[in-house]
């Protein structure tokens, strides 16, 4: 006979405000097999957990149902508490009274009734729970870091410095990411490249880091500790071992008018190119779409001039398979492009540019060598307007969120402009100034008070050209929405930070979740900000949401320590939620008839054939067998098996059947 304990949590008032917790506990106490039932203010607190532990010991409980928040939140907590009191952790189940009941329904009898039902389902389920032991799996102590921006660089270095191997892949020809494009950084105005490039070099030279640029993830299989990743190394049309990086090819290449991605289209590059002088690795790639040879079938000037014969026109993409134990995703973000802002004339007027383009103009390594000159005619703008929230916080545009970094970089841009263009006038249109961060608010005040940047609170309705000037029509909401019209020479849009194109496909390859904006989803918004819902895969930087540099770096270090923690173990324990083929006494051995149709249902190739032989070595039975190391516990085979010969621990036929029966018999 089961002796089940039911523990109903008030969660402060989160549950008890709409659910009559005492009634839930009282009702549950009357169920067959329930030996103890109680409600308590905070079940997850120390005294709450002690309540469970002492009840297990004193009442000799054989099963526990904690009726509180989502099991996705606290299942590990309560299972651990049970284990500490000597009860197998898998004898503990949770009824979700908070997320699925008290928070979504009004106070009333119906809500309490529902809470009672939810508890009853789990009480009946737990009667069919079995003690399970965790599964041990080995750990491959190599990490894969995807994305070589500042977050990926930091994560790689931090992991590598703990003594573990790292494979860093970057889809562009060089690592560095957006940070390498920036001129100076807020709130200190130190030069971005000056602080970044030493780290880039460190990555390239680190004995524990293997760097593959121009490479992308092709596919991923496996699970925490034991991933198998296929990496596509895109052809650089170059033998990297022979190339010395002398750069002769890039000076002789006849295709010279290709917009430079690094300079955000404000500068030009050749078809064989190194994206920027400090690139790591500092070796060129051929952009096949723009290369004369690949277009017309002749040219090969780079091959002719190369002193080491390193050019390889016939080189193909390589697919490489690596085994890794953990993955850090640091693929960053992108900014909204011209077609998004027809009302601002972006794309139509060359002097309406993005914040990233302004970074290139302000950068000493940029197309104007750090002088603020407008793209149309190279003149120094005497009046410049900065628009915050270009796209951000605009539900009509589908981007209701705040891109977070813009307020700060706009202040920086305006400040840089004032420093570089003496006598120039700068204006910032903003909705709110969001300068939460160490020394951030002070930085913005400096821009306004010391550098004389004109901040106007209000939005801009449109921008149009008149007599060679960009007319910015806005309103000042602090002056009763008084119309403001500024004749500007140049306009900079703080365009919304958005998820990379292809983020969705990458998430699907990795089997991780993403939010409605296609940013990758963390496992918990507060307590698991660098974890994903897929064990062993972590997030760093702006692939999760718009992030500034310090945040990206902090996240990267956080992800790195998670990886290092994982790698500090030789074996991992995995939840024993796996499928099992039943065994019966000879001569039947199993109800499995060996049709093996289940093999193709398994997403993990975890089902194999098992042959049972007699003493003479003759096969007397063929049946399916689940490899516990490969099974991930989806149960797709379980629902498919005609004879119900496969069952899944934790979600068995009996448990699920019982849940349905228990629910509806009384509901």
């Amino acid at each position, binding site marked *: 006979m089961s002796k089940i304990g039911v523990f109903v949590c008030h969660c402060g008032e989160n549950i008890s405000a709409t659910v009559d917790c005492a009634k839930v506990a009282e009702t549950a106490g009357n169920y067959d097999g329930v030996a103890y039932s109680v409600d308590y203010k905070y079940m997850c607190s120390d005294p709450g957990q002690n309540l469970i532990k002492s009840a297990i010991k004193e009442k000799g409980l054989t099963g526990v149902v904690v009726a509180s928040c*989502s*099991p*996705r*939140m606290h299942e590990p907590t309560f299972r651990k508490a049970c284990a500490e009191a000597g009860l197998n952790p898998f004898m503990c189940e949770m009824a*979700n009274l*908070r*997320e*699925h*009941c008290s*928070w*979504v*329904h*009004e106070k009333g009898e*119906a*809500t309490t*009734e*529902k809470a009672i*039902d*939810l508890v009853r*389902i789990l009480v009946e389920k737990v009667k069919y729970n079995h003690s399970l032991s965790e599964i041990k799996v080995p750990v491959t102590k190599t990490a894969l870091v995807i994305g070589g921006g500042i977050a990926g660089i930091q994560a790689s270095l931090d992991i590598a410095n703990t003594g573990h191997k790292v494979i860093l892949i970057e889809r562009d020809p060089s690592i560095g990411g957006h940070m390498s494009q920036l001129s100076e950084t807020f709130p200190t105005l130190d030069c971005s490249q000056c602080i970044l490039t030493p780290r880039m070099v460190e990555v390239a030279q680190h004995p524990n880091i293997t760097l593959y640029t121009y490479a992308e993830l092709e596919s991923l299989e496996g699970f925490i500790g034991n991933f198998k990743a296929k990496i596509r190394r895109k052809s650089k049309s170059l033998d990297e071992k022979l190339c010395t990086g002398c750069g002769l090819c890039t000076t002789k290449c006849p295709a010279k008018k290709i917009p430079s991605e690094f300079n955000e289209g404000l500068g030009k590059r050749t078809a064989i190119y190194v994206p920027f002088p400090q690139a790591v690795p500092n070796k060129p790639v051929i952009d096949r779409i723009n290369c004369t040879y690949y277009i017309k079938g002749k040219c090969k000037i780079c091959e002719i001039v190369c002193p080491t014969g390193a050019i390889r026109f016939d080189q193909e993409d390589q697919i490489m398979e690596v085994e890794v134990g953990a993955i850090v995703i640091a693929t960053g973000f992108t900014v909204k492009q011209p077609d998004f802002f027809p009302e601002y004339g972006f794309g139509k007027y060359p002097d309406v540019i993005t914040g990233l383009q302004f970074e290139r103009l302000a950068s000493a390594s940029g197309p104007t060598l750090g002088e603020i000159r407008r793209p149309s005619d190279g003149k120094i703008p005497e009046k410049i307007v900065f628009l915050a929230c270009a796209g951000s916080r605009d539900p009509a545009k589908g981007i209701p969120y705040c891109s977070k970094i813009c307020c700060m970089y706009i202040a920086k841009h305006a400040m840089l402009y004032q420093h570089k263009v003496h006598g120039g006038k700068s204006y910032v249109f903003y909705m709110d100034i969001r300068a939460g961060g160490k020394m951030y608010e002070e930085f913005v005040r400096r821009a306004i008070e010391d550098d004389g940047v004109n901040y106007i609170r209000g939005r801009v309705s449109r921008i149009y050209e008149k007599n060679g000037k960009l007319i910015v029509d806005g309103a000042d909401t602090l002056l009763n929405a008084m119309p403001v019209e500024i004749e500007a020479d140049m306009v900079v849009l703080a365009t919304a930070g958005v998820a990379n194109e292809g983020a969705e496909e990458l*998430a*699907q390859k990795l*089997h991780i*979740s*993403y*939010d*409605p904006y296609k940013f990758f*989803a963390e496992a918990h918004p507060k307590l698991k900000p660098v974890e994903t*819902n*897929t064990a062993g895969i972590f997030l760093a930087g702006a692939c999760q949401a718009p992030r500034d540099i310090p945040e990206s770096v902090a996240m990267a270090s956080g992800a790195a320590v998670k990886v290092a923690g994982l790698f500090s173990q030789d074996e991992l324990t995995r939840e024993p*939620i796996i499928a099992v083929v039943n065994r019966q006494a000879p001569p039947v051995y199993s109800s499995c008839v060996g049709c093996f149709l289940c093999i193709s*249902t398994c*997403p*993990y190739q975890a089902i194999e054939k098992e042959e049972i032989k007699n003493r003479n070595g003759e096969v007397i039975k063929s049946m399916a067998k689940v490899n516990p190391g490969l099974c*991930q*516990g*989806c*149960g*797709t085979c*379980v*629902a*498919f098996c005609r004879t119900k010969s496969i069952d*899944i621990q*934790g*979600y068995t*036929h009996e448990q*699920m*059947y019982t*849940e*349905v*029966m228990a*629910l*509806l*018999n009384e*509901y």
Partner: protein
Amino acid sequence: MAEFEPKIVAFVCNWCTYAGADLTGTSRIKYASNVRIIRFPCTGRIDYMLLLKAFDEGADGIIVSGCHPNDCHYTSGNFHARRRWIMFRSLCDFTGIDTERIKFSWVSAAEGAKWADIVNATVASVRELGPYTEYKKVAKYPEKEVSHG
């Protein structure tokens, strides 16, 4: 007589819809309290027999929900499920089972609002359809009537 309150059972996967319903909670979006969620690891685990059992035992409506195509935590459990649903639903329809009472949906972990909409829509449509008396009539086999005397 009080208004008919349909009994709705939801079979959902742990990774998308269960998490999505959690998000409905964290977002404090209110929805009809008629639904009871039963958690499965994956839509691939949801046995079609359980749907029949739910009707047997008196459910008026059923929600079956999991990850959107391509989003399955287990890569392809939902693809397998979808193929099975296509055939199972058709067979139910062919045998005269009211397929209007089974709502299939994809609700991701980010779609808290969608979950509330799905529940509300199902409750509203099943309320309109009324209690599933046809099924309940055949489901009342003798020993059950005795036990409920």
